[in-house]
């Protein structure tokens, strides 16, 4: 929803290491394009005197450094957007930080830009940060790079310095793939080669920065593709009107066009198109429209209306590059919310194939993805999503990952390709199935997942319950968290990554046992909701019964059967649940045992009667 401008819009971002002079560069460009008002200029004068970084000269960076904190630190710490225009073009600049811990903001700035200016300090040469940023912006789909070799005044405007940096960069950039690179020697402070050719560098015969920004051709960046309308909103003011609103992310559409709705695959025709300027016969990429269809179809937010003859694929697994933006590392297996267009689903990384090493652009193996790292992963979703690859369609090939508890945006991803399960893992069809096995045993197989604090009585209750079930002729198995660690999970420790793997294996074993027709009891502290959710999702609906053994911490600590609380209090055990590591109580357990004032026998009986009521035994 931007204002249509005839002269065209270029969005670009600037990136580089700390103190490479990004803010100065933008400030000076704004100044040269007459975007600095008289009162702004007066303030700039006053602030430059009061403590700018440029000594007695005008400190142009003050024009763009908005936040007080960064003014004090002398570094830019967030993405700032600036707007300016020349008679030829309109520009939106994302000023992004070079400070290492804020790299996520750079990816943010890059995600909506067509071009990136990479600043290099001529006196320092090419830095790792510049390579890292190049890799990120290139991966984010930016095809136009400007290597701005800044502070040429500090190296006496020497051509050999510029040539060396430009050559070093060209060698590095070969690995970036298809992109156009323009190297420009300049001084943001003095204004050389910004909007006017530098008199100090007559050896340079390329364009000035502004020339280049005004003329660079980005029209081929959008790969023309078939019609795509992700449905954002179902517009239903009354029973007679049912419209689907969204912004066209690719192609063209006209009244009467045949369309296919993803992921259902249903077919229909466009009956009408409503644009901001009223009814229209057709509409194209970038327009916010509301369409109606010739047939009644069940369409909701997140579905995609697409050209019938070239619809996007839908899949619940794909391979993607993921940039991780949170201090807590990405653990394979952990549940996250994935948002792609208007679709949101649960997702987990199933396999981290490699982590990209920015220093030499190589790949390394990794078990987790750390803050600011980029990895190539497989993801599995709980529902199929409709997508295009990122290379073909930025809008439908990009997603963000959201932490389900803190709601923070923790990662961003770009889809490389979809994985169809059948193409990769072939299921061996079995003639004897779960139903047949269960029928023979006269029970409904399921997982009874006992969760609660250490010493809450989980194992005791599960043990009594198993005896009770056995007496009734039930076929059971009891998996104890501690016992499993002696065998199957002997190789796992207590790091976050290992805990997730521990749960995954227990969940997988339970799933197999359920498949074998058994009643599986799992006795396991399992303090984190996300992990219990993971186990729940491994079996079918109705096959997971969460039993919350709710015994207050004081009572567990008083019992202290294994003497563990005493050790934890003494600091001899770290990360002990309930002491220095949290226990996230289940929100909606199938069975909630208030265990404080009942005997284990009573509690086991309580579980038993619920199982009977549910028809499990």
């Amino acid at each position, binding site marked *: 929803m931007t204002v249509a401008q005839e002269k065209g819009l270029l969005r670009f971002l600037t990136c580089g290491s700390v103190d490479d002079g990004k803010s100065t560069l933008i400030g000076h460009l704004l100044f040269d394009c007459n975007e600095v008002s008289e009162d702004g200029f007066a303030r700039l004068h006053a602030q430059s005197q009061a403590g700018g970084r440029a000594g007695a000269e005008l400190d142009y960076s003050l024009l763009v450094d*908005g936040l007080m904190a960064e003014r004090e630190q002398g570094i830019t710490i967030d993405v700032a957007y600036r707007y300016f225009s020349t008679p030829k073009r309109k520009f939106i600049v994302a000023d992004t930080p070079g400070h290492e811990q804020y790299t996520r903001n750079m990816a943010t700035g890059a995600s909506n830009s067509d071009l990136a200016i990479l600043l290099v300090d001529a006196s320092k040469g090419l830095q790792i940060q510049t390579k890292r940023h190049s890799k990120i912006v290139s991966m984010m789909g930016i095809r136009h790079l400007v290597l701005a070799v800044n502070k040429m005044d500090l190296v006496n405007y020497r051509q050999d310095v510029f040539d060396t940096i430009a050559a070093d960069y060209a060698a590095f950039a070969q690995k970036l793939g298809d992109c156009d690179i323009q190297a420009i020697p300049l001084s943001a402070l003095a204004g050389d080669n910004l909007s006017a050719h530098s008199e100090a560098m007559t050896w340079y015969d390329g364009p000035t920065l502004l020339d280049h920004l005004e003329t660079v051709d980005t029209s081929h960046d959008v790969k023309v593709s078939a019609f795509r309308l992700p449905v954002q909103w179902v517009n239903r003011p009354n029973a007679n009107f049912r419209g689907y609103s969204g912004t066209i992310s690719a192609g063209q559409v006209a009244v009467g066009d045949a369309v296919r709705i993803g992921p259902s695959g249903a077919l229909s025709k466009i009956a009408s198109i409503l644009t901001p300027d009223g009814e229209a016969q057709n509409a194209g990429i970038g327009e916010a429209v509301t369409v109606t269809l010739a047939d009644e179809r069940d369409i909701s937010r997140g579905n995609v209306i697409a050209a019938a003859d070239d619809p996007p694929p839908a899949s619940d697994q794909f391979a993607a590059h993921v940039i991780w933006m949170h201090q807590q590392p990405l653990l394979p297996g952990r549940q996250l919310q994935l948002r792609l267009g208007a679709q949101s689903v649960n997702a987990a990384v199933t396999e981290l194939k490699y982590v990209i090493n920015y220093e030499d652009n190589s790949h390394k193996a990794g078990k987790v993805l750390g803050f600011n790292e980029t990895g190539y992963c497989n993801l599995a979703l709980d529902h199929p999503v409709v997508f295009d690859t990122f290379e073909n369609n930025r809008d439908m090939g990009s997603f963000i990952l959201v932490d389900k508890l803190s709601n923070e945006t923790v990662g961003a991803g770009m889809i490389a390709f979809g994985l169809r399960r059948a193409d990769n893992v072939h299921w061996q069809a079995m003639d004897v199935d779960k139903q047949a096995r269960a029928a023979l045993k006269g029970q409904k197989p399921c997982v009874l997942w006992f969760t609660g604090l250490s010493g809450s009585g989980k194992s005791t209750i599960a043990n009594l319950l198993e005896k009770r079930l056995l007496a009734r002729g039930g076929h059971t198995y009891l998996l104890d968290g501690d016992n499993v660690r002696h065998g199957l999970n002997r190789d796992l420790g207590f790091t976050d990554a290992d805990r997730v793997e521990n749960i995954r294996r227990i969940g997988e074993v339970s799933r197999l046992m359920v498949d074998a027709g058994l009643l599986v009891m799992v006795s396991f502290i399992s303090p984190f909701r996300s992990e219990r959710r993971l186990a729940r999702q491994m079996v079918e609906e109705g096959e997971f019964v969460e039993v919350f053994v709710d015994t207050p911490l004081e009572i567990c600590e008083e019992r202290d059967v294994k003497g563990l609380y005493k050790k934890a209090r003494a600091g001899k055990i770290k990360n002990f649940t309930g002491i220095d590591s949290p226990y996230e109580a289940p929100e909606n357990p199938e069975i909630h045992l208030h265990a404080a004032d009942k005997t284990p026998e009573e509690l086991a009986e309580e579980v038993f009667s619920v199982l009977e009521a549910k028809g499990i035994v």
Partner: protein
Amino acid sequence: MILREVAAQFDNPVLMYSIGKDSAVLLHLAMKAFAPAKPPFALLHVDTTWKFREMIAFRDALMAELGLDLIVHTNTAGVEAGITPFSHGSARYTDVMKTAALKEALSLHGFDVAIGGARRDEEASRAKERIFSFRSANHRWDAKNQRPELWNLLNGRINPGESVRAFPMSNWTELDVWTYIEAENIPLVPLYFAAKRPVVKRDGMLVMVDDDRMTLAEGEKVEERMVRFRTLGCYPLTGAIESEASTVSEIVDELTHSNLSERANRAIDHDEAGSMEKKKQEGYF
């Protein structure tokens, strides 16, 4: 696109209608984004009781014409305490009658998202705003710890009590706004257009004498001058500029050649360096 995301992702959205030109554009966009339906959210105006009289008259007429319901909220405690821009200074007054009033209204109605017309080109700290800007349960903004916003993917997930400020016009410039107003013929408060008005020169600002609550200091005198306003707020705090531009196209023309920034005549921005950022952290829009 952004307005539809707001409607789809939140339970109880509200559009902050301040009667100014940005609000006018925002409301216009909302009417279009959901046509033929009406915008699926409430409208709220925080009335400080010190707005220009013409603004209030315009507001009431427009709401009647569009058939929309507007919630008008005033910090009555502030009025009873006798807080005025003349007696308490612009900083204290803004805090009580605008920021506190806004927070009060948002909490009272349980709005989980407030849509505003703020633009990143207005002021340095606004340039760093997200389109979906997260606010804690007590309405605070943590500028250093914002959710990254990539592509067009807006993350509106919040816990109960928390809220989001949504700024659909983040990437518009003042010139974009006027160009759009011209193209779409959007009605505005007449104060935006030059006319002869009674003004007093005070602290370098031209303050319009809008009612008899304004008392003149010694040496001040009311003059009739040809003026208009680039932004509208509370009349004692909003300076006029001398101008002959009495139509939208004349304003567009004037802007293209202007040398003063838009908020140069807003008193609250100049209390001290970084003043807008402080107000925003505390909950100001």
